């Protein structure tokens, strides 16, 4: 393995590569091909270095400390990669490498239309900022990197800024992300008041001395801040807007990786700095996750835009991760370190899994966009014939997203279920036990809705007949895009087969916080604390499933011969099948929207144009959903802010005399204040 010196070098090389990649913005926009290969080559190499660093650190269970130079008095710029940081660096770097491969093909779309150097350089700066977010050891530097990440991602979301919807999305994103930053900054400043320095290590020592009310306040602010960045319902509104607006490889990165930096921040503060908290902290995080998991996916049900649905599903999956974190906090409060380690391992496992399958799905949706130039599934159809590779890879990602065995999504969801089950057995209070048990069912519900979304989007976009010319003339995407997606699909299978391998990587993280070991197990087993011989062996199920598949096919063929097939027209009661006769995405989700009418507020409009009502000439049918969260929570807030702004505008009246008066008043006040200080 790598020595410590080697790891430091490799880490420096990674940062350097990203920095060099950023410099591609200076390549002339006339040479998009060179900029494309250069930027994504640097990003790929940087990602590979990052993976090596993270794996070496996690495997050896070591910590990397790098003290750089003092920036200001009492402000040392230092980097520290402990288990937690290394794990998130692993997630970032894996996706960085894969996304860069995909981007080489995807970005060719923008040749001669948009500035490719800007996009490529932006991608590298985005990766650099995310790598810094997880590796800095100082709250001040953390905020700088965090802000850099937010601004760069805002710039990337706005890449196609000539479109109106993109500008709206970018605006909402930049507002929400700064609300998040505001809350995080406030709680960091509160900690600074106690320590006088910004180092996380000093925060750690002082955290015990902070009065309870302030610590609770800080917890709530951190939850709101990081929750908003993670897209937790009801702070998710930017998520379904910003993700579809960005170029697809950027959406893949944002959803798969950037949301996870919020999880990192929350874990860093709650477990590392505060060392856990009272039980209600855990309960609050768990409930926030639960609400996000269920509502997030329900809001996505009606959407016919593939990337918007995937964004809603991210809100759901981040919810599942928060449920795991909440359970870990609860177990820690109840002093069950082994179970806390199990719950945290489940949450982190889901972080990794979600990065894989959501990255894959966003890239597959991007491939569809690349080939057909539309994200609306009601204009698609039949793509499985023209884009077989993309279709198969989308299906694998979708099955993992719906938490179906035997792929990786199921394994981490299973681990979360086990943690919740243990919670409902061991928690001291009646309420928490009940919450634990009911959360299992609620997550099950969210899982089936995600599965329904998969059937809707895969079924409408990829199966049956094309609904538009664009879909009918689509062709398979370039090799580099297929390769990028295929790598993640292989990852989805491997992570589902060898859960013990991931647990081995997580040992360091859990050992860091809970002073306990995860149960040691073989690489293909996911053990459960509580009963010794219980565990999940996805590999065995895989083998049995595959052999049943093979045997059934072979035996039938051997005994009865090959299946004889005649190809005929689909039965439509005698009429000729038209593309418009197929179930569309809208009609697919109608039954479930009717069932959930109260929750999503579906509104249907049917206009029948005809002289005589029984023989309509033309029917216009529109389904609209009104999300109660947006009408009840955001509209009043926005309205109030705008009203307030109008009030304040009296000051800004454009009158030169009054501006001069302000200057004089300010000067007088300043002088008075100075005088007071002197005395």
């Amino acid at each position, binding site marked *: 393995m790598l020595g410590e010196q080697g790891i430091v070098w490799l880490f420096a090389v990674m940062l350097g590569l990203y920095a060099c990649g950023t410099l591609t913005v200076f390549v002339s926009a006339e040479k998009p091909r060179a900029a494309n290969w250069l930027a994504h080559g640097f990003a790929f190499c940087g990602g590979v270095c990052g993976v090596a660093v993270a794996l070496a650190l996690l495997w050896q269970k070591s910590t990397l400390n790098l003290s750089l130079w003092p920036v200001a008095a009492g402000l040392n710029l230092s980097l520290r990669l402990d288990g937690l940081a290394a794990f998130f660096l692993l997630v970032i770097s894996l996706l960085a490498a894969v996304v860069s491969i995909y981007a080489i093909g995807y970005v060719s779309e923008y040749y001669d239309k948009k500035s490719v150097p800007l996009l490529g350089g932006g991608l590298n700066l985005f990766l650099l900022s995310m790598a810094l977010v997880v590796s800095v050891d100082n709250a001040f530097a953390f905020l700088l990197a965090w802000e850099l990440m937010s601004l760069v991602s805002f710039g990337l979301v706005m890449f196609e800024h000539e479109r109106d919807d993109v500008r709206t999305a970018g605006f909402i994103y930049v507002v929400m992300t700064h609300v998040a930053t505001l809350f995080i900054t406030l709680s960091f400043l509160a900690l600074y008041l106690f320590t006088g320095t910004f180092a996380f290590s000093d925060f750690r020592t002082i955290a015990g001395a902070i009065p309870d009310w302030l610590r609770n306040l800080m917890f709530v602010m951190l939850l709101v801040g990081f929750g908003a960045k993670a897209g937790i319902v009801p702070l998710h509104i930017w998520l379904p807007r910003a993700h579809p607006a960005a170029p697809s490889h950027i959406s893949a990165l944002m959803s798969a990786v950037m949301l996870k930096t919020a999880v990192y921040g929350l874990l860093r503060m709650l477990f590392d700095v505060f060392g856990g908290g009272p039980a209600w902290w855990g309960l609050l995080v768990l409930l926030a996750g639960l609400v996000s998991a269920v509502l997030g996916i329900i809001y996505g049900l009606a959407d016919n835009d593939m990337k918007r649905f995937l964004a809603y599903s991210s809100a759901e999956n981040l919810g599942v991760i928060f449920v795991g974190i909440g359970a870990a906090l609860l177990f820690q409060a109840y002093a069950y370190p082994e179970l806390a380690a199990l719950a945290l391992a489940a949450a982190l496992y889901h972080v990794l899994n979600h990065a894989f399958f959501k990255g894959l799905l966003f890239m597959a949706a991007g491939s569809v966009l690349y080939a057909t130039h539309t994200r609306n599934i009601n204009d698609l159809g039949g793509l499985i014939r023209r884009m077989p590779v993309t279709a198969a890879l989308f299906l694998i990602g979708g099955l993992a997203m719906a938490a179906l065995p035997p792929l990786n999504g199921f394994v981490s969801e299973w681990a979360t279920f086990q943690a919740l089950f243990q919670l409902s057995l061991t928690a001291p209070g009646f309420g928490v036990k009940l919450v634990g048990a009911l959360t299992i069912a609620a997550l099950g519900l969210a899982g089936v809705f995600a599965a329904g979304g998969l059937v809707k989007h895969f*079924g409408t976009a990829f199966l*049956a007949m094309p609904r538009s010319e664009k879909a009918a003339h689509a062709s398979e995407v370039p090799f580099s895009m297929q390769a990028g997606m295929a790598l993640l699909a292989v990852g989805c299978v491997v992570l589902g087969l060898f859960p013990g391998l991931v647990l081995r990587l997580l040992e360091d993280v859990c050992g860091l916080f809970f002073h306990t070991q995860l149960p040691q197990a073989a690489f293909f087993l996911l053990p459960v604390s509580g009963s010794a011989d*219980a565990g999940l062996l996805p590999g*065995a199920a895989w083998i049995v499933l595959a052999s049943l598949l093979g045997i059934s096919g072979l035996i039938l063929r051997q005994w009865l011969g090959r299946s004889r097939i005649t190809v005929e027209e689909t039965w439509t009661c005698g009429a000729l099948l038209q593309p418009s006769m197929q179930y569309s995405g809208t009609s697919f989700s109608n039954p479930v929207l009717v069932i959930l009418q109260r929750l999503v507020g579906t509104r249907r409009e049917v206009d029948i144009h005809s002289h005589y009502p029984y023989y309509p000439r033309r029917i216009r049918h529109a389904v609209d959903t009104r999300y109660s969260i947006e009408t009840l929570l955001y509209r009043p807030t926005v309205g109030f802010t705008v009203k307030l702004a109008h009030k304040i505008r009296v000051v800004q009246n454009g009158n030169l005399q009054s501006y001069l008066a302000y200057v004089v008043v300010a000067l007088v006040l300043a002088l008075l204040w100075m005088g007071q200080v002197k005395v």
Partner: protein
Amino acid sequence: MLQTAFGLFLQTVLLIGLAPLVQGLVKKIKARLQNRIGPPLLQSYYEIAKDLRKQAVISQHASWFTRYAPYIVWSCIVTAGLIVPSFFADSPLGFAGDVLMVIYLFGTARIFTALAALDSGSAFGGMGSSREMAIGAIIEPALLLAVLGVCLAGKTTVLSQLALQVAGQSWDFIDPAYGLAVLAMLIVVMAETGRIPVDNPDTHLELTMIHEAMLLEYSGRYLGLMMWAAEVKQLVVLNLFISLFFPWGIAGGLAEAGLAVSLLLYLLKLALLAATLAVVETLYAKVRLFKVPPLLSSSMALSVLVIILRIVM
């Protein structure tokens, strides 16, 4: 190792061999209750054997998905069935997964069926598929909740341990919570097996069908496999019901004594359950599609009560 392999083989044969018989039994009892003679007991075997041999007609719009989905669905259901104990508690695949895996394997099968239904572009398929996913979204949490009530009492999610625990308690485990749980589970069993208050397995009327609508474009070997899979799923759900609620007399493993008695008891219980299904199907009418969620919600409400009782006690 050898025993596991033997167990796997035995249970697979039992599942795929017995499933059509259970279906035939339900149909026969139902027919007798309705004063009809009904099809022969072995009719389902004949149908599967015929379908497997016949030529298939496939839509020209269908892709490879239509041709592979039946095999995947069949294999997923049988794999799930290998995790659930039948007449011996130590189920052959019980070491690899628990009840959650069974439920999620059903989910995989459901998705592949629903997707295959969309593949031919027929509106019937789309209708069945969208209904299945909407109703399935309520069935699955209801099943999870009903199972959780038992798991909480047994403090594990491993099915063989649960079955042995319940069997070992003799009459002590019959309490109000148990009664409610049986009722909740019965509603879920009716829904999961696609039977009358929820879906009607005997109709091809577009207003009512769910599962049948999804299979409408299937024929030949593919239809045979899909029907067989549905019957195996019914048997697996019944197995789950038996091993969670009535595992009395179940043998521990294949090598243990009392295997013959256990097998006889198991067959008797299956026959009784088949009769129950037939009686319920005869007594009730199919409810409207959008009345199904309230029905399943009542099952969930019962399960929540069970969970509260289990936590308090």
